[in-house]
């Protein structure tokens, strides 16, 4: 379980996150929603140890900020929003980078490493691209390759910053399905999204962030209410329901 207590982040003397409290339980996909600039990426970076924080973050029995860099990487994987593949590397090699925290300096990759890499490739539907050069793939394919790298890290908690943005509809659904499957293995997934329908249908719980404060935390059905969407995003939305859940389409701005 991830237990966040009174988490505040101050960047360049400006308080960006204000005393946040929330938890993520084992087996849960928790969506993070909020307008641009609400602090979603800051929260994800802070959790993954990239910013100094105030407050406490506990992951299972660990006090997260006090873990060593290597130990943290064995417990928590982070998929950045900015997708970078710096050199013309093979897809399999890119995904295998996720195994770095599990190998001592100079140690060769093991059978367990190869298995984790193959599992990640399969899960993100990029196994057929394994021997291609990653930089020559389409943007959506690269996004899945990088997601597979984070999956290969094989951690208790996976934090993904907008993993579905820029993907075609089929692969957006595939990405959410993959995250759910990871969670169902008893892990925790924390994912930021802009697509309200994706959040409503695929997340077990949704946390809404506005101006660095939590503006809602609960089941998608509870969170996706006209008043709350108006307050957090400043939009009107069309609501529909089918057998698998909510469908939301923003239809207009609310004058504030």
């Amino acid at each position: 379980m991830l237990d966040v207590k009174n988490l505040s982040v101050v960047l360049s003397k400006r308080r960006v996150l204000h005393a946040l409290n929330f938890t993520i339980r084992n087996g849960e996909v928790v969506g993070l929603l909020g307008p641009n600039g609400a602090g979603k990426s800051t929260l994800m970076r802070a959790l993954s140890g990239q910013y100094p924080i105030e407050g406490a973050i506990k992951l299972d029995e660990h006090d997260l900020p006090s873990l060593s860099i290597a130990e943290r990487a064995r417990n928590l994987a982070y998929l950045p929003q900015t997708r970078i593949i710096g050199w013309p590397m093979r897809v399999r090699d890119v995904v295998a980078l996720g195994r770095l925290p599990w190998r001592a300096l100079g140690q060769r990759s093991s059978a367990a490493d190869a298995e984790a890499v193959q599992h990640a490739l399969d899960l993100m539907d990029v196994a057929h691209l394994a021997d291609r050069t990653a930089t020559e793939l389409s943007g959506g394919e690269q996004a899945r390759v990088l997601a597979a790298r984070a999956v290969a890290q094989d951690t208790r908690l996976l934090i993904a910053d907008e993993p579905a943005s820029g993907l075609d509809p089929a692969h957006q659904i595939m990405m959410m399905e993959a995250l759910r499957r990871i969670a169902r293995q008893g892990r925790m997934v924390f994912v930021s999204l802009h697509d309200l329908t994706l959040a409503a249908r695929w997340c077990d719980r949704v946390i809404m962030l506005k101006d660095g404060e939590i503006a809602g935390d609960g089941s998608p059905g509870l969170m996706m209410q006209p008043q709350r969407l108006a307050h957090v995003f400043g939009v009107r939305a069309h609501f529909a329901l089918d057998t698998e859940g909510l469908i939301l389409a923003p239809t207009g701005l609310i004058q504030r």
Partner: protein
Amino acid sequence: MRPALLNVGLTAIVLVAALLSLAVGPAGLGVTESVTGIVAGGSDVGAIILREIRLPRTILALAIGSTLGLSGAVLQGFLRNPLAEPGLIGVSGMASLGAVLLFYFGVAGSALYVLPAGALLGALIAVVLLLVLAARSNSTLTLILAGVALSSLAGALTSLVLSLSPNPFASYEIIFWLLGSLKDRSMEHVWLALPLMIAGWLLIALAGRAINALSLGEEAAATMGINLSRARTVIVLGVALSVGAATAVAGAIGFIGLMVPHLLRPFTSGMPRQLLLPSALGGGALLLVADTVCRVVLPASELNVGVVTALIGAPFFLWLVVRTRREVA
């Protein structure tokens, strides 16, 4: 290409280039005489020429070329920037400045160790400044910017010293040194520079994991168990030690650090770490050949090797850039 095959091939090229380097010179000794001269020893003129003149030159060309190739490869990987090279972070510029100042004060020739010591001191100051400036942020961009600023400053100060130079002879000495040369180097130079270069190589080798992880960006690397600030310190120190020592004994030799990693990258898997050893071997081979060419083309006055690497390097590099751009487009 398989990494082992590439490394074996490059090692073979290095060996051939080293033998050629030993065999070519004004004294007209062939390959066989060169090798027997070194292995068997002896006190005849041929053996002395080989041991005292050609052998140190060959060793230095190999070691300095390797240093430049290796440093270029590690910096390109670390900064995720194909334009990175040892000159970029200001270490060679500051090393040159250190040496040039000694020329200016007329003490450069007072002892064999004075000039290299000045250059090393310059390189050291560059490292301290870089680490202090870059330590404030975790960004590699800060390091590039600080390096560029340092390079410009060193270049400006070098020009200033040159224009204030007391006599034409000192200016001539400075210019000659700035062009880079391996002429008239002795085993003392080897013993002075080689240990520092090897120390630098070992540090750079420690950074292999970090530069692999950094190919997915700093955010990803930082959450993949890589201590970025330690990686930066190790790389900057390694490059500074080895390039500082190289510049100290041979002056500024350009283009190898930029060109060799580019030339060899298509033959590797693209992982930055896999480029380190091939770049070291390729840099060594290239400088050996360039230095041999210097002796052959103008035997009487001898070209500066820095001029030759730039003359071969720049057009070739341009061709390479145009070709790869066309393939991508």
